[in-house]
């Protein structure tokens, strides 16, 4: 689950988002969604509720890609695709990686905003 070739953030999407005038609000909602989503993912993994894992990963993959958070979106997508196939340990590693990626992405997006 390593993907350093993909850009962390797509500059063009960020520019478009800034032009809508809703960047600050989107960042606020994104922060809440990611925080809640990562908790849900952790819970899904702990209880081995793979459908919950798939569902939250699907939703947040879309959210990440929409703000141009490409690497984060891709990582969520890998969790979504592997929700029923990856081992619980692998999903746990995926969760840790998502936490790191979200921290990095958020920092970049906040600077861009």
């Amino acid at each position, binding site marked *: 689950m390593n993907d350093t070739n993909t850009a962390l953030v797509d500059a063009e999407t960020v520019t478009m*988002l800034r032009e*809508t005038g809703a960047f600050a609000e989107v960042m606020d*909602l994104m922060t809440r*969604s990611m925080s809640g989503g990562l908790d849900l993912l952790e819970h899904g993994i702990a209880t081995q509720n793979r459908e919950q894992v798939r569902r939250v990963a699907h*939703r947040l993959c879309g959210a990440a890609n929409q703000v141009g958070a490409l690497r984060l979106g891709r990582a969520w997508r890998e969790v979504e695709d592997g929700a029923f196939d990856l081992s619980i340990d692998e999903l746990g590693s995926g969760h840790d990686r998502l936490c790191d990626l979200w921290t990095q992405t958020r920092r970049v997006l906040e600077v861009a905003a």
Partner: protein
Amino acid sequence: MTFPVHASPNRRERYPHGHVLIVEDEASILVMLKAAIQRAGRIVECVARGDQALDRITAGGIDVVLLDLGLPDTAGIEVLKRSRRDAPDTEVIVVTGTHDLAVAVQALRQGAYDYLTKPVNLSKVGGVVDRCVEARTTRRTTRLSTCVHKIASISELDDLPGCITTSAVAVAGASAASLFLVDQDGGLKVIETQGPTSGQALGRAKQVVVSRRWHRWWMPSESPPIVAWPMQVEGRIIGVLVVEREPGQPTFEPGAIERLGIVAAAGALAADRLIKVGALQKDVNRLSRSR
């Protein structure tokens, strides 16, 4: 013939921008789409669930729905099907992930106008909505023109009532239409009915004749929704055209009432022409007999 002044108020004043409903469960995506579509000059409402979407769509007044197919509570495709059934004049653009294109194809087959893939290109979404609103307006205008042309082309008086009521149902999105004829004493006689009527049509037609004006222009909470239009020739009411929707369906929006008025006017003109033709034919027959 007179035409009530309220029959054709400025369309832009009533529908300045087009009304868009966004159905999306992820709040951050919803805010982005909303901002992009508002920038394109549209009025935007948002809901996060399929059941809320259906309630809002059936309440009326929505021109275009931007529908995420991956909703948590209801399958998006089910929302699309019910929207097409209950609000056929509301266009739907579906939003789907790039790996769900098979669902997008299914959605287009179920009557979606177009589809967008996630992540949605925010600089293009306004244009897609614009094209959808324009297509919807064109379709309605074409349908109205076709109906008016059909009415104007009728050559036998007996064929006219059926054509008027069928047209009224089509242009107003009604479930039923009734056509009443006003006799010389001011009494009313139903001469044609299309679809299931509630029994309130006659009462409403009488109100029109008594008040000598259309009735009613706007009754948002009325159930079943019902609207009656006078058919006038040289200021005299010769008939009343009444349309209804089933109880629980949305009330008639101003555009539908306006289109009904145009059908009523076209019907009155055609009736006047055919009555004159009939009278002339009688004179011709009488003259030819007397020779």
